[in-house]
């Protein structure tokens, strides 16, 4: 009897297992079609030979990666020297994205904290206000930013009118403009996860810290920030990753001098000047970079979670 019951039980769990596999199928399909297939395609293309008017020739080569890291002269016959051009573009992008993340954190944390400490009804309004810009397409918002920042734009007009400056300040086509663009584009991604963390924070802990002689600043540093660290890390990832690959803000606000990875890759697939394998190779390098950073942050996150719950 016992044996029969056990068999029956395992047969049923088999049924559950197969049902589960079938139910998971749509998710797998979406993952394959929209994530794995494009990445695989990119990976394959990065090892192919370029066709001059765009497209590829199906012939294996490491030329794209070689071009990224090395300079072999105009005709490719000189000894290989490390080519810093693209590496520098990457470095500049990481730096820009890092700075944008830092600025977003600097402004986003107090904003999120402010919203989370409002009465429940007003909180919803604030969150709604934060998300309003997202009702307008990013391209349109970035173009508008261009008009705001240009020499004769409202920002300069305002600064001139207040007498803070005598001549228009050059903002457009500088790194600062790219920064402003990135910061503006991704700030809500910083605010929302931190807000979610602060909202769950037990404010009795702040009272306990104050009761134990901690000043407001010490309480923030030693109690609040460690408690909401998962939200801070999530916000940093959500701002850093898209900033790193962004091309709208650098293209439209930064001008030709302030090339970033996103623009570099975009160029390779646009018009006749493109080089698809090179674009694919640059994408793969970017992807690897992002994955390494994410893995590092994920480990931090796991540690923060463990500390918050254990």
């Amino acid at each position, binding site marked *: 009897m016992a044996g029969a019951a056990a068999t029956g039980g395992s047969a049923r769990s088999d049924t559950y297992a197969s049902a589960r596999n079938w139910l998971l199928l749509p998710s797998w399909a979406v993952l394959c079609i929209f994530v794995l297939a494009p990445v695989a395609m990119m990976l394959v293309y990065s090892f192919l030979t370029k066709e001059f008017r765009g497209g590829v020739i199906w012939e294996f080569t490491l030329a794209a990666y070689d071009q990224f890291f090395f300079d072999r002269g105009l005709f490719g016959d000189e000894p290989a020297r490390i080519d810093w051009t693209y590496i520098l573009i990457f470095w500049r992008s990481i730096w820009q994205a890092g700075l944008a993340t830092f600025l977003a954190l600097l402004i986003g944390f107090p904003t999120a904290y402010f919203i989370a400490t409002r009465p429940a009804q007003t909180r919803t309004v604030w969150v709604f206000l934060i998300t309003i810009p997202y009702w307008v397409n990013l391209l349109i918002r970035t173009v508008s930013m261009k008009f705001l920042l240009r020499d004769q734009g409202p920002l300069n007009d305002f600064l001139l009118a207040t007498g803070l400056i005598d001549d228009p300040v050059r903002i457009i086509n500088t790194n600062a403009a790219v920064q402003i663009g990135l910061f503006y584009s991704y700030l809500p991604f910083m605010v929302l996860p931190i807000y979610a963390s602060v909202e769950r924070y037990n404010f*009795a802990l702040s*009272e*306990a810290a*104050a*009761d134990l002689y901690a000043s407001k600043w010490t309480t923030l540093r030693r109690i609040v920030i*460690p408690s909401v660290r998962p939200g801070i890390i999530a916000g940093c990832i959500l701002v850093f990753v898209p900033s790193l690959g962004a091309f709208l803000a650098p293209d439209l606000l930064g001008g030709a001098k302030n090339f970033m990875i996103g623009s570099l890759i975009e160029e390779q697939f646009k018009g006749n000047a493109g080089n698809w394998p090179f674009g694919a190779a640059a994408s793969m390098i970017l992807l690897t970079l992002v994955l390494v950073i994410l893995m590092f942050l994920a480990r931090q996150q796991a540690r923060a979670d463990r500390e918050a719950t254990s």
Partner: protein
Amino acid sequence: MPDTRNAIDVRNAVKRYGSFTALQSITLSIRDNEFFTLLGPSGCGKTTLLRMIAGFEDVTEGEIFLFGEEIENLPPHQRPVNTVFQNYALFPHMTIEENVMFGLEMRGSSRDAARKKAGEMLELVQLTPFSARKPSQLSGGQQQRVALARALAPQPKVLLLDEPLSALDLKLRQAMRSELKSIQRETGITFTFVTHDQEEALTMSDRIAVMSAGRLQQLGEARDIYERPVNRFVADFIGETNLLDARIEAVDASVATCRLGSGLTLECDAIGNARPGADVHISIRPERMTLAAANGDPWQGTVKENIFVGTDVQTVVQLQGGIALTVRTQNSAAGVATIFDPGTEVAITVEAGAARMLED
């Protein structure tokens, strides 16, 4: 000038939230070295008063003194008082030891000195083996003791405890009562304890302040409050009682003769403004009456029911004129001999001094 020997002096403290008045002019003193309890039902303002002493709530009007020093305008981190919070509020990302060390470090102790002191405190609450754990790895009772150690470590002038036992189960709560009391005696620190549990208040406190509806109802020693409640609220809230309506017939020296609705008369101590003809309330504790077989005395009635409650039996007796009294008889051989079946006519004897006239 407030008395500098008092740990806490609250003078005419008022707390208003918009148009709502949470505390209406409270004045009380907490003596150095005593176990003082603020007792009342939820919403009576006891926690608000405690939070005002800690500094978490602004004082709308009035003053608070700590050993003669005015503190109501100091931020919480500048007041030398510590709090044990209702849900402990232990820092989840720190170990038990780090939690206890926190207040010491904030007061400028070196790490080593703080660690040494934290070790002593954890020993006091018997949690030394747990010092490296995180709060979530401890049971509720253990977390409670960590919260106590953390609040005691900086040697506050007054320790404030905000319903610290309410989240524990009954057995643990009873064990913690005597532990708290003995720690208070051992450390000599003034404890100010907030609770809605009258038994907790009676067993631990040196003095109790009973609060209701934002007002101080009565302040006194535990026995005093139980035996001599000043009003219906206190008589009813502390323990169980029989509340009777009466009219004063005569006042002779300090003894008043009162007539109940049914025509029965009763003598009790006259209070303040007692004068003949006034309507008053009288409280008689159920355990201060005894039953006997009917003997023709006017104080007699019919047994309605007997309720067995373990240590005692509660007997409801219907007097002539519709008054029902509850009498408590101890569940002992002598006690059980005075319990009668429902329907039996019995005589009730009220112990001398048991009837207490109330102010309102």
